[in-house]
């Protein structure tokens, strides 16, 4: 039972790292600002949630659980707000769609 809990905690931790890697890959590979912010916000939020689930499975208990739920709720509240503010200000600056690579955007 204890070994099974540790195994699940390890699986969730590695899944969180994988989603963080996906976020970095999306930030490098996507073609304009809006899609890059999409990768950053959603994949990083998923990675944060998976890592918090991993730490709750590693140390089960009320204290860690409440801290993890508060931290996760705060992240899920603030990540979209920050992304929305950043995107709104970038668009009102006129920085909407000037990608740095040339070629057909559908190929990338």
């Amino acid at each position, binding site marked *: 039972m204890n070994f099974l809990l540790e195994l699940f905690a390890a699986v969730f931790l590695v899944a969180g*790292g994988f989603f963080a890697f996906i976020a970095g890959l999306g930030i490098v590979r996507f073609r304009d600002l809006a899609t890059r*912010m999409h990768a950053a916000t959603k994949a990083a939020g998923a990675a944060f949630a998976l890592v918090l689930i991993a730490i709750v499975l590693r140390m089960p208990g009320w204290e860690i659980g409440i801290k993890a739920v508060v931290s996760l709720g705060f992240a899920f509240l603030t990540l979209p707000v920050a992304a929305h503010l950043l995107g709104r*200000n970038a668009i009102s600056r006129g920085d909407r769609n000037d990608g740095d690579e040339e070629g057909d955007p559908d190929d990338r």
Partner: protein
Amino acid sequence: MILTIAHALFTALIGASIFLCLYRLWQGPTIADRINAADVIALGFVGLAIGHGWKTGNAVWLDLALVAGLVLFVGTTAVSLFISPEHLAGGEDEE
């Protein structure tokens, strides 16, 4: 054994993510790209802190992650307000 392997894999993946975001921070065509990449880099370091707490079994690192996420939100909001044209125009005495 399995904890060590999982933590090593996690650290390698987060490190790869941070280096990919460093490329976008260096190369980003707009300033909003750079702010976004810096945000994800800081979130990666928060993830590394939680991973260290996961490995050592110390719950203090979760508090650190909570406070760092709060400061991260305030920083990103402040910088993204700083790049807005309303702020750069200097308030209501313009036009």
